[in-house]
C-alpha cells in the first residue's frame, strides 16, 4: 500500500455502521453546520410557506397560520452525506401529511425551495406517510438560523442535503427535476442505507 502517516488515526469513526448507523457514516455528538452560502435572515412577519406547481389552487401560509397547524415533536437520527450521523435529535414541526392533506395533484415529484436559492428534489412518496416535516424547533428551542431557522424541511430517512434549510415552499412536479446538488453530481434520491451519494451509486 501507499504512504501512511505514522501515528495518524483521524478523529472520526468511533462507531462502525450498525442498525442505526448507515454504511460509511460515523457518529458525532455536536451538530456540524453546513453552509453553501450566506445565512438568509428572514423576519417572521415576511415569512410564508407555499405549495405551488401542479396544483389547481396554490396554497400559502403566513407564519401565524403555519404555527396554528397541528404540530408534533419527534426524535430521529440524521445522516449527512459528508459522513456524519447524529443520533436521537429532537425536533418539533408540522408533518408534510398535514400540509399536503386535501392537496390534489397529478405530480409525483416535489422540489423544495428555500431562501438563498437552494433547491432539492424528492419523490412525493418520500414526503408523505409520516416521514417528513417542516421543523421549527430543535432540542426544545426555536431553530437557529444556522441550522435552517425559522423553518426547515426534515426528511431524516434521506441524506440531510434533502432536508432543505430555510425552506419557503414546495413545488409539485410531474417530472423529477434535479435540485442544487442533484444537478451537480449528487444522487437523485439519496438513501443513506443504500449509500446513494453520487450519480451512479
Amino acid at each position: 500500500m501507499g504512504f501512511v502517516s505514522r501515528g495518524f488515526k483521524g478523529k472520526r469513526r468511533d462507531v462502525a455502521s450498525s442498525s442505526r448507523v448507515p454504511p460509511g457514516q460515523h457518529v458525532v455528538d455536536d451538530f456540524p453546520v453546513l453552509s453553501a452560502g450566506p445565512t438568509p435572515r428572514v423576519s417572521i412577519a415576511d415569512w410564508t410557506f407555499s405549495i405551488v406547481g401542479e396544483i389547481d389552487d396554490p396554497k400559502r401560509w403566513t407564519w401565524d397560520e403555519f404555527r396554528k397547524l397541528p404540530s408534533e415533536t419527534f426524535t430521529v437520527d440524521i445522516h449527512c452525506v459528508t459522513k456524519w450521523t447524529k443520533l436521537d435529535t429532537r425536533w418539533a414541526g408540522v408533518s408534510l401529511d398535514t400540509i399536503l392533506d386535501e392537496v390534489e395533484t397529478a405530480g409525483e415529484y416535489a422540489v423544495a425551495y428555500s431562501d438563498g436559492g437552494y433547491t432539492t428534489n424528492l419523490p412525493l412518496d418520500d414526503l408523505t406517510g409520516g416521514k417528513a416535516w417542516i421543523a421549527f424547533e430543535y432540542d426544545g428551542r426555536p431553530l437557529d438560523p444556522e441550522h435552517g431557522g425559522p423553518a426547515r424541511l426534515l426528511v431524516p430517512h434521506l441524506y440531510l442535503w434533502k432536508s432543505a434549510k430555510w425552506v419557503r415552499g414546495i413545488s409539485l412536479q410531474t417530472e423529477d427535476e434535479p435540485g442544487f446538488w442533484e444537478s451537480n453530481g449528487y444522487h437523485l434520491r439519496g438513501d443513506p442505507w443504500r449509500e446513494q451519494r453520487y450519480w451512479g451509486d
Partner: protein
Amino acid sequence: MQQSDLKLDGNAIAGLLREIFTMEMTNANSTCAGCGKVHAVGRVDVYLNAPGAVVRCPACEQVLMRIVHNRGRYWIDLTGIRCLELGPGE
C-alpha cells in the same frame, strides 16, 4: 466561531482548481454571469462546509461555480461565470 467564518475565499480551493485546470487559477479573472462584476478567483467567496465547494460572487452572492469531487471524478458547474480569463502569470 462566528458564522461568518464559514466563508472562505478562492485561495482555499487553489489546490482543487489546480487539479482540474492544471494551472494556477487564483490569478484568473471571473466575470459573474449575474451582475457582470469581475473578480480574481483568489478574491471570490468560497463555502467548503458543504457537500461540495460553492463559489459565490463577492458583489452579488450569486453562485459562480459548484465543484463536487469524489474519488477522482469531478462535477463542475460553471454556469454562474460568464467568462474566465486565465493565462500565464504576468
